[in-house]
């Protein structure tokens, strides 16, 4: 008997449970956009090459375009629609707004979700490709503009808003845990 090509499942997104039947080919990205009407998560390349679809899965940033929806069952997904506290913007959102960390806005939800994770990854002591000494004894690197650029490099912005995005991430990191250098 050929295997079933669809599944009934429950997706947990921004604290809400959604029961749906998905074609196994459906990515988490398409499930969010086409099935749950959560269109804040953007489709820029659909190949993991731009970062526009970045969401948080169990607290980790991931690209939703390469994540099958069926494989997301049992995981807690946070999208751009779920990062503010009610009317109060997340510090990263507020910094992007104030410092004009976007132009067309299409890569913005992905940039913001990625930045939220970058601040957490840094706080957890993760090194990056530009960290001079990765040994744990060296301690966590200061979150310099160079560190922010490297850690945010998986999010392309064709408008070229990188300069203000880096400033926004630095400000939000400073506000969140005093981390920006």
């Amino acid at each position, binding site marked *: 008997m050929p*295997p*079933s090509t669809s599944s009934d499942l429950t997706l947990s997104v921004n604290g809400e449970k959604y029961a749906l039947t998905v074609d196994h080919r459906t990515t988490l990205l398409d499930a969010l956009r086409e099935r749950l009407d959560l269109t804040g998560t953007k489709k820029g390349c659909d190949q993991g090459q731009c970062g526009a679809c970045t969401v948080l899965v169990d607290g980790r940033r991931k690209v939703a375009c390469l*994540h*099958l929806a069926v494989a997301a069952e049992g995981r807690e997904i946070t999208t751009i629609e779920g990062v503010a506290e009610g009317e109060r913007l997340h510090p990263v959102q507020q910094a992007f707004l104030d410092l004009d960390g976007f132009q067309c806005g299409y890569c913005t939800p992905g940039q913001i979700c990625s930045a939220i994770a970058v601040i957490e990854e840094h706080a957890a002591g*993760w090194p990056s490709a530009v*960290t001079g000494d990765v040994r744990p004894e060296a301690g966590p690197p200061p979150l310099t503009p160079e560190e922010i650029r*490297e850690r945010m*490099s998986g999010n392309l912005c064709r408008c070229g808003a990188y300069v203000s995005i880096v400033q926004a991430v630095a400000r939000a990191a400073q506000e969140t845990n005093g981390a920006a250098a």
Partner: protein
Amino acid sequence: MREFGYQRAYDVSGAVALLDGDREARFLGGGTNLVDLMKTGVERPARLVDVTELPLNRVEETADGGLRIGATVTNSDLAAHPEIRRRYPALTQAVLAGASGQLRNMATVGGNLLQRTRCGYFTDVNSPCNKRVPGSGCPAIEGEHHNHAVLGASDHCVATHPSDMGVALAAFDARVSYETAAGPGELPLTDLYLPVGETPHLETALPPGALITGVTLPATATAAHSRYRKVRERASYAFAIGSVAAALDVRDGHVHDVRLAFGAVASRPWRARTAERVLTGAPADAGNFAAAADAELTAARPLPHNGYKVTLMRNLVVAVLSELAEEAAR
């Protein structure tokens, strides 16, 4: 993308049993390469067995003081692991040099080793490609190949292996363990990849239906003095055009132990054993580093547009070993 079945496995033997040697089925790890290839039509599996829930997500101490890395450890967790950073810093650097934060959170160690080449002819199903369709030809040789292989390639395929992680693992004598229906097995990482020859579509020495369960790093003090340098056409978020993983132990100004591996120059992470032999026991200076690189690169067979890689690799070897030697002298 064709329709496919999906099953989730919760233990290793269950995963192997679910796959059942089915040539139309694939193990699904982080999906960062497989799902992309399914979208482009390069892979058309009828069934996926999700292995991300397998209890293989730990980095553990081995009896001889090495480390065993589970196959489903994500790239991010591997790079951030304190013992990897302390004992094998080049491995952390290599992992962090690859892809993006998002992709490293998804990608797994097992999947990283089995990822496919990013040769643009391989990923375009409308193009001939001996690796994808045996016998259809290799357009890269007469066409675009400025980022293709200069070592170990053949007239049938000049694609490179895209892994950064694998380069560091190759330098550190990693061994790959796997599970089959007939039981477990193990082989050196440098033997995981088959020579290209006339059969570029046959990529690994794994038995059919095998599941990679982990990678073991033997204890080696030299690895603590190691470095990974990657050159690419963007400052980040791009595949290498050349990379070096190196570890160096200098005693009394002479090379006591050295490990060298190259990335983006061959169909597999390229362990530079010839260069290591030339260097071992020699004075640790730039002239000998260059001579060692040259010895390794005499085997290079560049095409019209990728000859720069020979120069690049030579320069990288000298630069990285010189830095390591300087640090050792301090």
